[in-house]
C-alpha cells in the first residue's frame, strides 16, 4: 500500500482531532496524532488487515526545546505481510512541575518495552502502564535525562558522578 493510501485510510477512521497533521519527506509520510489517542491509533494500524503493521521497528524520542509542546515520540512501523513502512509521531507537552506522560504501547508490540525504557531515561518521558519501568542503560543512581537539549554534554559532578556515592567497597 502506498504511503498516501495509508494516510487516507487512517484519516477515514480517525478524525482531525486525532490526526493532527501529516507530513511527507522523500516519499515517506508521517502522521502526528494526539498523544492521548496513541493506543487506539497503534492498535488500528496493527489489526487492520490492509495495514497489518505487525512489526515495530523503532521507538524514539525527540526534544524540540524550546518549542511547545516540547517532546515528540516517533514510532517506526513495518508490515512484513504487505512490505510497507509507516511513521507515527505524537507531541507531548511538558506541564510545569510534572513529567511528560504518554501511554505505553508495550501491550500492542512487546518489543516497545526496551525502546520505551531507553526513551524514558534519556528524555524523562513517563510511559503510563509500562510493565517494567526501570532504567535500561544509565546507572541506577542517576536522576538526570542526558538527551534533553538543556543537559550539559559533559554532565556535572553532582548529577553524573563516576561512581555511585558510598558504593560499599567497589
Amino acid at each position, binding site marked *: 500500500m502506498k504511503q498516501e493510501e495509508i494516510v487516507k485510510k487512517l484519516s477515514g477512521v480517525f478524525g482531525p482531532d486525532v490526526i493532527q497533521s501529516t507530513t511527507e519527506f522523500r516519499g515517506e509520510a508521517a502522521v502526528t496524532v494526539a498523544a492521548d489517542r496513541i493506543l487506539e491509533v497503534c492498535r488500528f494500524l496493527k489489526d487492520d488487515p490492509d495495514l497489518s503493521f505487525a512489526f515495530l521497528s523503532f521507538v524514539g524520542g525527540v526534544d524540540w526545546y524550546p518549542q511547545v509542546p516540547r517532546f515528540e515520540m516517533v514510532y517506526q512501523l513495518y508490515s512484513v505481510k504487505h512490505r510497507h513502512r509507516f511513521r507515527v509521531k505524537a507531541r507531548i507537552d511538558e506541564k510545569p512541575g510534572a513529567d511528560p506522560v504518554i501511554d505505553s504501547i508495550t501491550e500492542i508490540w512487546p518489543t516497545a518495552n526496551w525502546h520505551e525504557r531507553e526513551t524514558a531515561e534519556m528524555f524523562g518521558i513517563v510511559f503510563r502502564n509500562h510493565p517494567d519501568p526501570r532504567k535500561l542503560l544509565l*546507572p541506577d543512581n542517576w536522576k538526570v535525562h542526558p538527551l534533553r537539549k538543556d543537559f550539559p554534554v559533559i*554532565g556535572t559532578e553532582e548529577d553524573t558522578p*563516576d*561512581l*555511585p556515592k558510598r*558504593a560499599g567497597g*567497589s
Partner: protein
Amino acid sequence: MAIERHLNDTVHVTNLEWFVNWSRKSSMWPLGFGLACCALEMIATFVSRYDLSRFGMEVARPSPRHADLMIVSGTASKKMLPAVLRIYEQMADPKWVIAMGACACSGGIYKNYAVVQGIDRYLPVDVYIPGCPPRPEALLDGILQLHAKVMKEQSIKNPRVPRIKAAGQ
C-alpha cells in the same frame, strides 16, 4: 663466579630480587577481558600472527584471581567503572595495569557525561599506550616496556602496594 665453574656450570648464581622480577615478567598472565574496540586489537595480539606467547603471556585468565596484568582495553563507561574496580580488587598482588588506547588513557574522543575521563583517575596505571586503537605492535611495545619496568622493581626490599585511588568516593 668461581663456584659455577667448580660445579661444571650446573648452577647459576644471581640475587633473589633479580630472580623474582625475572619470574614475574616472564609469565605475566593477563586478565581476559575487554571493554571496547581496543579489545579486538588485544585479541589480535594474542593469536598466532603477533603471538604474545613469545613473552610467556598467552594464558589469558578468565578469573581475576589468577591474573597479574589488567589491560584496560577501551572506553570505560561510568556504568562499567564499579565492575572494573571490583575486578581489579579481586586480582592478587602483585598486579599491574596497562591503559590501552586513547579512551583508557584520557577518555579519548568521549568528553561526555557517560565516560570516565581516563582510567588513571581510579587505577594505578603502569604503562599508557596511545592510539585509537593502538596496533598490536604498539601493545607489544607497551608490554615490553612493562617487562623492563618490572625488572627494575625492588620487589623484595620495597614491594609495591597497588591501590585504587579514591575508592568508594
